[in-house]
């Protein structure tokens, strides 16, 4: 954790989305290390390992088989080890219900997956460069859904 990289994890069951995500960071050429997991179970298995490197930012898809994003969110928020972890919800839908639920559960930001690669890059770079230490203090419902 003492290196200068920003550690990023994405949990998403969709192969294409994982590909876009990795490509985007590759093209962004930021000091990031990206790991992806295929669903919530794989993700939690990793995070619960004692020697796991806890990432700076976790991108969490909501609709995943076996263990959904919401279940992961609750588990993470109930564990003090992850109190500094920034959680970005990364989902296809942006239904009021999902936004409300994840906000209440303590996610930091809600990203609706864009349909344009350039926009995706823009979003991801914005999330990574946000000073979350500062941002977390001013967390509120009206800027929870990321708009660019």
């Amino acid at each position: 954790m003492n290196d200068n990289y920003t550690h990023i994890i994405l949990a998403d069951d969709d192969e294409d989305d994982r590909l876009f995500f990795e490509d985007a960071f590759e093209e962004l050429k930021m000091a990031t290390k990206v790991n992806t997991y295929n669903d919530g179970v794989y993700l939690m298995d990793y995070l619960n390992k004692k020697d796991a490197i806890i990432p700076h930012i976790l991108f969490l898809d909501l609709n995943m088989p076996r263990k959904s994003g919401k279940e992961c969110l609750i588990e993470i928020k109930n564990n003090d080890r992850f109190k500094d972890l920034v959680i970005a919800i990364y989902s296809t839908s942006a239904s009021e219900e999902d936004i409300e639920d994840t906000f209440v559960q303590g996610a930091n930001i809600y990203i609706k997956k864009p349909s344009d690669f350039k926009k995706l890059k823009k979003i991801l770079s914005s999330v990574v460069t946000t000073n979350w230490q500062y941002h977390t203090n001013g967390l509120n419902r009206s800027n929870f859904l990321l708009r660019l």
Partner: protein
Amino acid sequence: MAFVKIYKSSWFVKVVFVVSLFLILFVAGLGYKHITEVSESQSLVLETYEVSVELEKILSYLKDAETGQRGFFITQDSIYLQPFFKSRRKINNTFAELKSLTKANPTQQENLKQLNILIEDRLENFEIASKYVLKDQTDLQRFKNVFFDGKQIMDAIREKLNSMISLEKESLKKREEAYQNATRFTPIFLFSIIIFTLLLLYLAYVKINSNLDQLKQKNQQLLVFKESTNQSEIINKHGSWRWDIEADTFHFSENLFRLLGEKPNSFEHTPENFNRFVHPDDLDKLSKQVEQMREDKDLPFIHYRVIHKDASIHYLKAYGKSIVNSEGKTQLLGTTTDITDEIDYLNKLELRNQELELNNKELAAFNYVASHDLQEPLRKIQTFLSRLEDKEAINFSDSGKKYVERIHAAATRMRLLIDDLLQYSRTNKSDEVLIKSNINTILEEAKQDVAETILKENASINAAHFPEMKVIPFQIQQLFSNLLGNSLKYRSKDKDPVIDIAYESVYKKSDQRLLNALDENYHKIIFKDNGIGFKQEYAKKIFTLFSRLHNKDEYSGTGIGLSICKKITDNHTGFIFAESAPTKGAIFTIFLPK
């Protein structure tokens, strides 16, 4: 007026009869008294005459005695003394007679006593005189004295008798006068009382007659009422029943039998007979409730089923309430209604509701498919397309580039359609609660939604200050951003868009468009732009789903945006209206209930 009031009152007849009875008794008593008085006075008159006659008789007997004595004096023959002795006897008889006749009159009794003494004296005088004649004819002087004494006594007797007769006559006269005084007015008095009594009786008769007429009329009305009740029971499929609790007897109306599929009065009016028709599963419940009714003297609404002869099942509903009748007896009046149609209707409605619920669930599932599963492949197509445009565009031929461009346009339009449809179906949710919200913040958020366009089109938005309103916040935000987006999209080409948003608090009556509104007070929000506007004839059409006024080559759009606006105001039991003319800009007016 007071008399009319008395005449109208129900106790009038009774009082008249009692009064008449007393008056007749009075008249009878008075008549009896009058007649008794007449006969009494008659007997008194007779008595007076008798007394006079007896008195006259006494005088005449004395005269007989005197005549006999004188005959004896002259002839010295004792034969002449016979009338004297006879007279003496007769006088005694008459005296006794007189005594009894005048026993009610003390004056005459006194007179009689004095008369008696005088007569005794006279008779003694006769005897003394007679002795003188027999013994010694010489002492003429003494005889003369005795004889003179006799004459004097005789005169006194005559005088006494006359005075007694005149006294008797006088008393007769007095009596007659007094009697006439007392009875002069009696006949007229009696007559008038009888006339008055007859009048009273006549009034009572008239009253009874009119009461009878009224009774007849009331009876007629009752008959009509009963018949109309019967008809109403048939039409409304209900029957009534009465339970006299003290006597424990029941009475069922005709239609109650028909509710059981029977002819009126086809069986005796008893609960046992009625229960024969009740559905076996409901019999226990019904019996318990009837038992309860015995205690409570009231029957709440109860439902049960009956089975007709044709085996058809009918649903009945009953209700009862106890009253105390004019005789102080408690009666339970009940109504039973056939609600089979209602139940059938309810069941059908229930079925429909279930179908609708199922449909809604399917729709919700479809929404999810549309929102998530359909979006995902589309998003990927678009993302890959953007990658293709970025990385591979240089390798394309001109027509290849054109195709990619077309694919891009089509995919964009598909996304728009899916998004809008999703929005539209989301506003379907009717179970959202109204929250007191700051409309100014909501408008700011709506502006954020279209911030990019505002910047691009160099638009200015002037908004008034809004009070708090009870709304579904995310829907109102959707409404505002749709209206803003609409104004920005249909902007005029030669001037920068300006959108004025005004607020007013209005009464229902102040705007004729609110004629059918349910509430009294409304928030009025007006969006006014300087865009291209539209013909007023389309003012209604633009709110219907998929309706568009322009070709999609001119203006992109799905024809859903304003339908969403309409749906949102509907959800708030509010209204939205549009006014416009080509090139004159458009005014959208929203009314939300306070």
